[in-house]
């Protein structure tokens, strides 16, 4: 498995998006994919909920509560992922959600923190492309593009190849290599690597929320 996420999660970064909204840009992207010969293969969804350490468990003043992200990916319907920023990624059964309810005393769900991306899966040769609309609450916040090249298990081995593929439908708006490509040089790619990238993308989009971006409602 070899996914990675496009950095350009925000509409304003898409070249064609001037004067267009998220929905129109997603349509433009998918149309380009279809023209390339990619075929629709169902839908996908990745969601993420933020938890922070409950105030009661915090020690001395000033110690910031650590954030934990609990995520799901329709690609791995039986798993639940728990991540810390720059920290470990725990892969658990979906029962983990029930456990989180029990741990209410230690981890509290941040209010209205749920962020998710939904969209269509496209198959082109051995590539799997997922273009999703990132939403927080009722509003669309940006676009996620995930590209997976199944045959290759080492991320850094196929970066140039992926980049060329991305250019074929994103034009010049291709991202820099995700950090996951840099560290662990020849490590075999795992689903957790994808989730870390989604977490980073979601965090970026959350921060943008504070700065209103023109064109996004």
């Amino acid at each position, binding site marked *: 498995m070899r996914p990675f996420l496009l950095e350009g999660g925000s509409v304003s970064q898409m070249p064609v998006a001037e004067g267009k909204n998220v929905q129109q840009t997603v349509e433009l992207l998918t149309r380009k994919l279809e023209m390339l010969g990619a075929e629709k293969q169902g839908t996908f969804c990745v969601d993420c909920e933020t938890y922070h350490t409950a105030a009661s468990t915090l020690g001395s003043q000033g110690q910031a509560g650590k954030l934990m992200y609990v995520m799901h990916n329709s690609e791995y319907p039986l798993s639940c992922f728990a991540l810390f920023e720059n920290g470990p990624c725990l892969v658990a059964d979906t029962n983990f959600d029930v456990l989180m309810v029990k741990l209410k005393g230690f981890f509290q769900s941040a209010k209205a923190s749920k962020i998710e991306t939904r969209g269509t899966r496209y198959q082109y040769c051995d590539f799997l492309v997922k273009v999703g609309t990132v939403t927080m609450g009722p509003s669309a916040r940006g676009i996620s593009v995930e590209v997976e090249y199944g*045959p290759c298990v080492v991320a850094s081995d196929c970066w*140039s190849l992926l980049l060329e593929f991305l250019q074929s439908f994103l034009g010049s708006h291709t991202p820099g290599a995700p950090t996951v490509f840099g560290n662990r040089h020849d490590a075999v790619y795992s689903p957790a690597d994808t989730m870390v990238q989604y977490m980073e993308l979601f965090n970026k989009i959350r921060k943008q929320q504070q700065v209103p971006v023109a064109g996004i409602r």
Partner: protein
Amino acid sequence: MADVLSVGVNLEAFAQAISAIQALRSSVSRVFDCLKDGMRNKETLEGREKAFIAHFQDNLHSVNRDLNELERLSNLVGKPSENHPLHNSGLLSLDPVQDKTPLYSQLLQAYKWSNKLQYHAGLASGLLNQQSLKRSANQMGVSAKRRPKAQPTTLVLPPQYVDDVISRIDRMFPEMSIHLSRPNGTSAMLLVTLGKVLKVIVVMRSLFIDRTIVKGYNENVHTEDGKLDIWSKSNYQVFQKVTDHATTALLHYQLPQMPDVVVRSFMTWLRSYMKLFQAPCQRCGKFLQDGLPPTWRDFRTLEAFHDTCRQ
């Protein structure tokens, strides 16, 4: 043509022999009839057995008699002349209805044709042998002299020898690991793992490679019962393509007298897929064409090309 074939056959004896054959056939069937019918109802068990045995004996005697008669006659019949170039098929020329069944002339044509074919094939094989294996031609020029001359029975090499050749190749390439197993008797099967790029199942017959399947590093190469799965193909188009090319390579690297050189050349070629996802095409300079990386590797230079970019 027909006059050449003066059939030195006693026709009278022929007719008699044919009826002798008929007699023999009917006496043989009588034996089986008798066995099939079994013992007839007689008053005593002893009587029944006696009658059956006597009947059976009679039948066997008549078989014996008819057989002797046939043997006697067959000596009288004499042999058909054997000096005809096409032996018995020459008798076809006696067929009076040439126009309707031109079998004989067709036969002669086919015969001539196959003679010619054999002759030309012989010439071609001589010429091709001088060319020898392309890539290892140089090293072979040296080693061929040291090497024991062509073993004709390369199909019955001892398993130990095969093991040695394979383990030597395994040591030659550190990024390639070869696991040899013999699940079906003496024929070896290899599972070749190339870095973290791909896996290859190689089915051997002695030191000849019969079949090869290329799959992804993360794909399953075993069946449910834990045996190597030599039938199912890869789920990925790129490895299906590489499988096709590997099969082509098997046909390219041919040197019946030195199968170990062939296996080594094939593995050397296979190793060039180490950079399957990292090497751009040597002709168009791109990574992708129709969604596939350069899957072809030149047999001589090992350079990467797209399937459609190779010469």
